[in-house]
């Protein structure tokens, strides 16, 4: 009735009835673009206040509580502040790259939203290699960080960017192998096929221990890929002041900040899609009564519920674990996570071939 896919279908029908197909397509693209930008702004506001509230809760403080009811409008006020601040470009910086870098970060984050299924039949682009597309585009994000770090012409920025480059390039491997485990089980790279395969149970529960290992490795790897604590060496405050965005101020800093939070949302959405069934309600085998009750909850609520649960887990990491050293970080990836995930992929392949999963 009021599901997202029905609204989209109604808009599509109305546009096609009133305009030529070409114009309808163009208007739909504009609507999709506006919706993506709106989602960006909303995510930025929600995730920042969520992080501050979660950290306050973990550290037994109150957190922001002045602006609006229980401080819920704090991030709106912060945005206003960032908007009116002066955007400085340091004298020794490379002007072009310095100003382009935040936009590259934003564009990459926006491109990553394309193949994500937000609800049943509600997806911008269901391409047949969706999972590969995600890993390809997310590997571009490191270029914006390297650009920002180098163009700032500042030792701290450059060191932060270098660390971030080493970190993202190495953790991409185990994230990719963890994703491959699900691809092997499903036999498809298309996001909608992967979700459909989880109709009778999510992969986390259907795939035995190897999938649980893959899930844990995926969460660790994406935490590192999004440069979040305990892997936030790229902006380790105590050593590098603020890492690659030391020289940024005003709205350009806000764009990096926003891109970081949107990236967290995206990796959590991908994790929820691959391991927790995306918008698929929680089903148990042949329990029809139970499955029927679960189907009452709208698919978008399921998707956002799972995604925000994973975001909460990643925030929980940040406020619980101390930061790693750079050598510990690289050792963790190359000596532990990568061999484990390679062996794990073999196990998953065996399970998929023998049909041992439920």
């Amino acid at each position, binding site marked *: 009735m009021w599901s997202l896919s029905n609204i989209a279908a109604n808009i599509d029908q109305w546009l096609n009835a009133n305009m030529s197909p070409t114009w309808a397509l163009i208007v739909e693209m504009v609507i999709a673009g506006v919706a993506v930008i709106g989602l960006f702004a909303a995510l930025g506001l929600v995730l920042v206040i969520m992080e501050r509230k979660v950290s306050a809760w973990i550290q037994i403080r109150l957190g922001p509580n002045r602006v609006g009811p229980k401080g819920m409008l704090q991030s709106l006020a912060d945005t206003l502040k960032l908007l009116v601040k002066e955007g400085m470009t340091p004298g020794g910086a490379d002007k072009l790259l310095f100003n382009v870098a935040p936009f590259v970060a934003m564009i990459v984050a926006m491109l990553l939203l394309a193949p994500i299924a937000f609800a049943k039949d509600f997806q911008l682009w269901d391409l047949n290699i969706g999972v590969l597309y995600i890993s390809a585009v997310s*590997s571009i994000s490191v270029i914006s960080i390297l650009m920002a770090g180098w163009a700032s012409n500042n030792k701290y920025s*450059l060191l932060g960017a270098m660390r971030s*480059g080493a970190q993202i390039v190495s953790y991409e491997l185990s994230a990719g192998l963890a994703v491959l485990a699900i691809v092997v089980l499903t036999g498809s790279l298309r996001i909608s096929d992967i979700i459909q395969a989880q109709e009778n149970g999510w992969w986390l529960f259907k795939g035995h221990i190897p999938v649980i290992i893959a899930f844990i490795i995926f969460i660790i790897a994406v935490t590192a890929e999004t440069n979040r604590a305990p892997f936030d060496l790229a902006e380790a405050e105590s050593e590098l002041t603020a890492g690659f965005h030391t020289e940024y101020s005003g709205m350009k800093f806000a764009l990096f900040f926003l891109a970081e939070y949107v990236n967290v949302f995206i990796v959590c959405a991908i994790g929820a899609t691959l391991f927790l069934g995306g918008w698929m309600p929680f089903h148990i085998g042949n329990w029809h009564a139970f499955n029927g009750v679960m189907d009452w909850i709208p698919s978008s609520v399921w998707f956002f519920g799972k995604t925000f649960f994973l975001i909460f887990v990643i925030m929980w990491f940040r406020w619980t674990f101390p930061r790693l050293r750079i050598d510990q970080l690289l050792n963790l990836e190359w000596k532990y996570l990568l061999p484990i995930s390679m062996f794990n992929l073999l196990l998953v392949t065996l399970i998929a071939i023998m049909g041992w999963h439920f």
Partner: protein
Amino acid sequence: MEITQILFWFLSVLAVFGALMMVTSKNPVYSVLWLIVVFFAISGHYILLNAQFLAIVNIIVYAGAIMVLFLFVIMLMNLNAETEPQKNKWLKIAGVVAGCSLMLVFVAALRQSDELLKAPVSMGGETGLIKTLGKTLFTDYVLPFEISSVLFLSAMVGAVVIGKKGD
């Protein structure tokens, strides 16, 4: 003009312009960034040829991994326009000769294009999809595929040996 033709010309101009800028940029960091633009344009061409898998792999391997390592090394060594070593005259002449020879090979290869255009090979809409590619790789070309994997393995072993030498 059809939309694919417009896209083809746009991507071609972008690729050639990016390649020229890459060669003529004084600053090595700009060269690498222009090369990334070229790789994106070429990936666009792959998509126009319905080879989506190849396009995505091109971005993952070249733009995502190799170019990042290039950027990494160039930024870490802090190469820029001032510190770039000036090559001597003979090296420049040798470069021009080598480039012209490569151009000659390309022109020779393109000479047949008129005849090839008359009989286009059609393999249906599924040519570039991952399923077709996997089947072809593991049936018709399984030996070259396996041999190339041995090549990668030896490269990895070589890297480890070089890295261990210092200890």
